[in-house]
């Protein structure tokens, strides 16, 4: 069964057997979609971004060495795709105050079509929306059962201890925003 591990499949893709990317897609599409959806709450955009990740994996397949875990390499790509999406659409990649965000949510129906109405999201998902994207990102990555913190640190390009401290602070912030929303 060794020939069917993620790393083995990606190495086959690298060697020119592009067909094997189909198996990797089936295996990881949900996880990637969940990651993007939790980042932007927009199913349509998230599907596009999943597609972009695989396009980029094909384009940069030569950079895959097979030394580290495939999921870490994949999420590094996903992270870049997400960052480029923010940059391209000139969406600010920094934290907003709760009151400011409220205003944006009411105002942005034209520009961000497809965003699910605020009341359909759970309170926690709304709270997530108020966090800075990099905090949302680390929380999403820490929740993936398949990824250890050593791999998350590789994705984020920081030390393992640093990744854990960041995750802790992001969780604390999420808690604060969540309580603020709950009081309303």
């Amino acid at each position: 069964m060794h020939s069917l591990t993620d790393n083995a499949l990606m190495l086959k893709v690298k060697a020119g057997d592009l067909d094997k990317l189909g198996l990797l897609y089936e295996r990881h599409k949900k996880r990637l979609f969940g990651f993007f959806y939790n980042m932007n709450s927009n199913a349509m955009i998230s599907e596009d971004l999943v597609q972009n990740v695989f396009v980029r994996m094909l384009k940069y397949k030569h950079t895959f060495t097979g030394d580290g875990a495939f999921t870490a390499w994949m999420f590094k790509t996903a992270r870049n795709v997400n960052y480029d999406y923010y940059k391209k659409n000139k969406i600010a990649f920094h934290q907003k105050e709760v009151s400011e965000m409220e205003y944006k949510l009411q105002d942005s129906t034209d520009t961000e079509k497809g965003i699910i109405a605020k009341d359909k999201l759970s309170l926690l998902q709304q709270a997530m929306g108020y966090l800075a994207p990099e905090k949302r990102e680390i929380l999403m990555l820490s929740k993936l059962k398949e990824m250890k913190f050593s791999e998350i640190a590789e994705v984020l390009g920081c030390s393992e201890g640093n990744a854990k401290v960041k995750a802790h602070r992001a969780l604390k912030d999420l808690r604060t925003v969540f309580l603020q929303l709950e009081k309303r």
Partner: protein
Amino acid sequence: MEKEQFEITMVEYLAGELTQTASSEFEEYLKNNPVQRAEFESLQQTWGKMDEAVVPETSEAMDVRFFEMLHIAETEKANKSTGFVEGLSSFMSLLWRPQVAYGILLVAIGLGTGYFMSTNTAQSDTPNTVVVDNETEEVREQLVLTLLEQPSANQRLQGVNEANKIEKVDEKVIKALLQTLNNDANVNVRLAAIEALVNYVDKPIVREGLIQAIGHQESPIVQVTLADLMVALQEKKSIAPFKALIRSKELDTSVKEKLESSIQQII
């Protein structure tokens, strides 16, 4: 415990990355430090709530778009190799100047004369090699089919191993391997047949055969191997036969649990 160390350990605890001993030590620490315990409990609640976040299902259109993209990439790759031939011919046309043509002509005359004057009339080996290769493959296929019918499990195992060596396997061999997987009395031979078939999972007939084989298996290890394979392939069609297998009374309890978790992973 220092603040930063406390934060790190808490995250490790929540993410399930602590060993059992370290977890108990952390729990003990919390018991003796009410302030930290309160902080931990509030964050643990938020951590748990994150699991409740609902993510919608992906659409079929996403799959269609992905496989279209993959198909285009594969076609482009195929074109690139023909592009190389075209590139070579345009390079050759660049060389097509009178001086070069004259040079090539002279070389050709030299070679031609050499060829006719040579007493050694050995022909090129290439066509022979191809014929020999084809013949070897045919003989190997025959060998596989014969070995798989032998009464000795050892020889049947050898037959399955021979099948692994065939580069372009034909339907006859695949059917023989599937029949071995369904009917062979020896568990090791059946497992080896699965391993051999894994090489050809790209072929629909193999996937179909593997799915049908699920219902025929009684050995727990074969059932579990097939379940792992189906998870790896994300083969949705295998869910129904697995569910039927779970309903049967004779099934081992741990296998039942394994199959249930595999179904979850496929869904």
